[in-house]
């Protein structure tokens, strides 16, 4: 079944008529994703591309179409409110692509999201993709992915593509790839993903792509040591990043002496995670852990 995105996914798109929303909805449809509804307040009653019905509210869309997942492409200032609206409408999986949401907005949204038992992925993330069922929620390019049994979780976008590309070209397919986002406050962290991959019968091995800032990777490493029996390989971006500077992602900042790449790589090694020095090393390390092309 892979994780969170699969054959059962009935997706609704918040901000479907916007510039980003319309572009990526077309891409998701082309890939094969079941997109059942769009939401843009004031444009209810229209049809996107002549096929996807557009609603004024998420609640309307869910009631009319049975949507069970939402992806958000609305501008930063309205994005946290869009997350709350989806959670309030009872959508169990909400994926927020939007970059640039004020952290205070997310801090206020999170207690509500949790109170509704919603799985939020992101914000500021590329979303997730399950190649086996051709289900894409977000913006990960479908053409670089291939069906297989390696689960992938990452804080980054294009760096994820780089690593996935190495896997695919070397015949190692993926069960699900999840981009959890580069913001300081995100709905789903590494541990949530590791836990899901560990329990997923269709995943045999896990690739974890982290970066500088915070301590999520260290906690992920501790979780791997205690709970994960499947092979894990990992990468940390930002080994050459200076201290105290925000490296693009709002969360990618070394504060004081904490959050450095060295510290995180050491935590990986101590947990038995194969540490990639370069993105290309993913193939070799997975092979060492017994993942072979074709089987992958």
């Amino acid at each position, binding site marked *: 079944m892979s994780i969170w995105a699969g054959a059962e996914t009935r997706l609704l798109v918040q901000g479907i008529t916007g510039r980003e929303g319309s572009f990526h909805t077309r891409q998701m449809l082309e890939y094969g994703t079941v997109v059942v509804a769009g939401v843009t307040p004031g444009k209810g009653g229209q049809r996107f591309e002549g096929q996807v019905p557009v609603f004024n509210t998420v609640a309307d869309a869910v009631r009319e179409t049975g949507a069970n997942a939402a992806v958000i492409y609305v501008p930063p200032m309205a994005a946290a409110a869009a997350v709350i609206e989806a959670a309030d409408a009872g959508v169990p999986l909400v994926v927020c692509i939007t970059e640039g949401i004020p952290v205070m907005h997310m*801090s206020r949204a999170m207690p509500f999201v949790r109170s509704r038992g919603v799985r939020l992925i992101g914000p500021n993330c590329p979303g997730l993709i399950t190649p086996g069922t051709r289900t894409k929620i977000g913006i990960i390019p479908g053409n670089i992915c291939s069906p297989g049994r390696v689960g992938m979780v990452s804080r*980054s976008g294009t760096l994820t593509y780089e690593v996935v590309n190495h896997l695919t070209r070397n015949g190692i397919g993926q069960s699900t790839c999840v981009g959890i986002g580069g913001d300081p406050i995100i709905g789903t962290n590494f541990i949530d993903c590791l836990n899901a991959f560990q329990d997923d019968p269709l995943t045999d091995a896990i690739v974890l792509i982290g970066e500088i800032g915070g301590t999520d990777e260290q906690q992920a490493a501790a979780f791997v040591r205690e709970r994960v029996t499947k092979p894990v390989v990992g990468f940390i971006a930002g080994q050459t990043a200076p201290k105290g500077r925000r490296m693009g992602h709002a969360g990618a900042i070394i504060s004081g002496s904490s959050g450095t790449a060295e510290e995180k790589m050491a935590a990986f090694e101590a947990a038995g995670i194969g540490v990639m020095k370069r993105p290309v090393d993913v193939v070799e390390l997975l092979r060492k852990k017994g993942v072979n092309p074709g089987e992958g």
Partner: protein
Amino acid sequence: MNLHEYQARALLKAAGVPMLDGDVASTPTEAEAIARRIGGTVVIKAQVHAGGRGKAGGVKLARNPAEAMDEASQILGMTIKGLTVHKVLVVPAAEIATESYLGLIMDRETQRPVFMVSSAGGVDIEEVAARTPEKIVRLPVDPTYGLFPHQALTLAFVLFRDFTQVKAAARIMEQLYSVFGGNGASLAEINPLVTTPDGRVVALDAKIVIDDNELFWRPDLGVLRDDSAEEPSEAAARRANLSFIKLDGNVGCVVNGAGLAMATMDLVKYYGGEPANFLDIGGSSSPEKVINALKIITADPHVRAILFNIFGGITRTDDVANGIVAATRQFKVNVPIVIRLTGTNEAEAIRILNGVGMTALSDMDQAVERVVKLARGAA
């Protein structure tokens, strides 16, 4: 975005936090006038975004207006960690009975604003946190409700015994929280919060960092940005909507995506080179962004070779190729450029580059190895 101390003071003062008198000066004469108005001994403090101002000679005592003028003329124009001092803050030299620390940060782990208070104030709180973490009391605040009065009181009791001082400090906690929440700060601290010999509780120094994501809808905060306090190339990049950080190496990097940009820098190092910068051109790249990126990177005289590393997803690689071609037509790039691109519209991008005699690689390692070699050869 970091605020200067005088700007942070203004926000706190507007919220009612008791502070000593004081004002900001851009010239020695202004500093003298402020010192005269305040009377007595004053402290002249350089307003730059750098730690260790005191050690660098940027904080001085002046016993009278003439000395204030003299010290201000020394400090104004001096360079601290590469940043020129354009303003000084003039405040009375306080008599201090006790010093404590009061801070609020947006905490990743609890996903909430977290108060940190410590009776070990005046010093670097990170050092206190590292050496004696038990001396810092932490309290997460649920932003849905804000800081409850009993929470403010609890924190104040950590710092003081005297109930008048406890009440005063609790009030300051509430005021600090309102400044933090009301301005979308990621950090707001008062260090030190002092008591004077006559028992008053006063904020002596303040630091506020605003979440950059707030600035889009808060132009009133945006105007507080001091361009002269930034590396000029970084200010130029910000105006061009590029995420850029200058480093000390000689391999210029233009990458799409922050994670890939960091990984590219790391790979440059792996192959024996030194990155000259971090640069993320972002997702939706226009040719214009590429032109601006090249302008900023080529302005750095240390750059010996430039690497483009583009993994097309949302980013169209043909947009990037068009930008490279347009830039090299607009101005002469005197260092070699290595281009790696793969993904969306790759074939079209390669056709565009080949049309002007340029080539592109599709493998990241190959491209990095080549650019490092070129940078070394040219050095």
